[in-house]
């Protein structure tokens, strides 16, 4: 399914520059795996990086460095090794998580072991990622989340189910690329739970006092 909501241009730029915090980069990678349009924009951004890299003033390589490089070539096998098998499948499998999530959550959506953090909300937190928080969320169908904005940047990608908010309808593969200027209140679609992967580089800001009071307990 072709996504309808994409990465912000500046997120693509930051990803290309290697400047996106680690947790956000995991979600961006997951979307890029599913979205040819965003991969095309990433190529544009990489072109800019390539030109900037080549514009720098440089000296000629030293002779000893050239000799060292040639010595490394001597040590290489004569025959080019075959490319490893692709681990990204072309045909979508509804149970298979995107590749960038495998190190943190495994391969299978159905095999996930959820932990309940609030009525209708389950979560799996990735540990040790550094550079922000990364989590999977499973929200019961027809649920309305508290109104909130974001202290920093948040990337959320839908893996299954859907939700609606002021920005539109978000289904599988869609990504919500949000920052502190957006206040929203997602409402999950009826039928199946909404499962998404979310990354933040700062805590959320809830508008209501109940949600604010529960925030330390929920860990958002």
């Amino acid at each position, binding site marked *: 399914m072709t996504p309808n909501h994409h990465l912000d241009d500046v997120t693509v730029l930051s990803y290309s520059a*290697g400047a996106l915090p680690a947790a956000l980069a995991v979600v961006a990678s997951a979307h*890029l795996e599913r979205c040819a349009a965003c991969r095309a924009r990433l190529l544009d951004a990489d072109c*800019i990086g390539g030109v900037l*890299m080549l*514009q720098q003033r440089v000296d000629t390589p030293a002779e000893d*460095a050239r000799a060292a490089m040639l010595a490394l070539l001597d040590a290489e096998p004569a025959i*080019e*090794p075959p490319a490893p098998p692709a681990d990204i499948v072309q045909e979508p499998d509804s149970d298979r998580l995107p590749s960038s999530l495998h190190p943190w959550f495994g391969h299978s959506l159905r095999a996930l072991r959820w932990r309940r953090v609030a009525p209708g909300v389950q979560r799996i937190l990735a540990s040790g990622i550094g550079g922000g928080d990364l989590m999977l969320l499973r929200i019961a169908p027809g649920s309305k989340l508290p109104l909130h904005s974001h202290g920093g940047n948040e990337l959320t990608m839908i893996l299954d189910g859907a939700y609606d908010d002021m920005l539109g309808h978000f289904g599988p593969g869609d990504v919500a690329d949000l920052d502190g200027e957006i206040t929203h209140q997602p409402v999950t679609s009826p039928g199946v739970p909404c499962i998404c992967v979310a990354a933040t580089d700062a805590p959320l800001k809830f508008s209501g006092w109940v949600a604010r009071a529960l925030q330390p307990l929920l860990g958002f």
Partner: protein
Amino acid sequence: MLLRAGHAVARNWSGTSQPEAMKAPAAASSLDSRCAKFVWTCSTPIPVAMKLPTGCIQNPPIDVFSAIEPVFRRAMHAVITGGNMRMMGSDQAVAEVTPFRAKRYVSPTPSKAAPDALYWSVQMTAVSLQRDRASFMRIYDHFSPRLQRYLRNLGVPESMADELVQEALLTLWRKASMFNPARASLGTWLYRVARNLYIDHVRRQPHWLPIQDGLDRLDHAESDRRDSQPESSFDQDLLRQAIDGLPPVQAKLVRMCYLESKSHSEISAELEMPLGSVKSSLRRAFAKLQVSMRTPR
């Protein structure tokens, strides 16, 4: 009329002494010659017949290269894409051409001209198909100092930067067959390799490389069927000009992003600029640069 041609005048693109460069395969040498812009005395037909506009040879001196360039580009494109292998790497082809003799210098500018995407594509083809070390060392001589400077700017210590540059070039040697000139220039390809090594080794994100390999393979598989803008179809000079023409603030933000690998939040804090302003300026800069990439040659 049949074009007559032969070995190119040996030419060093970087202006430095490069013994390896003298061992170029026939096709690469022929390509080297095209920026030298000599009027040549020709003696032997090359294997590929190419029609020239009337008057090219009859009324010298003229800039032969300008006249044949469109034809030459098509021929080289066929070589790169595998449609015509006769000019590349064939000993038979080498045997059938004889050396050019420079007759008269025409243009004062080509000696400063930088090698273009087509030149590097030919070098990569020689590396991929022939495991040609001379072509590899031309790539090394041009790109390794730029990769080194890029990594040093990111704060990578010198010894580690040296190691990463070597690893980037070894990656090129090993994965040369993955390079697709229709999708990205060699500069872009090597930029990706260096950035990925930086994130893997310096930022210590061990899962980054396999993820990028997966995305690369996805692009590789799609490149033949995707209806998108291949990089080789736009003029990189226009992108360079667009980068140079960015307003000072946008230019600074773009450079901080790419050449210092700073996040938007870090840029915002360092410049004491609202995060929203950082993002909107970068958005405008990206849009302008994309326009330059969509401008036809």
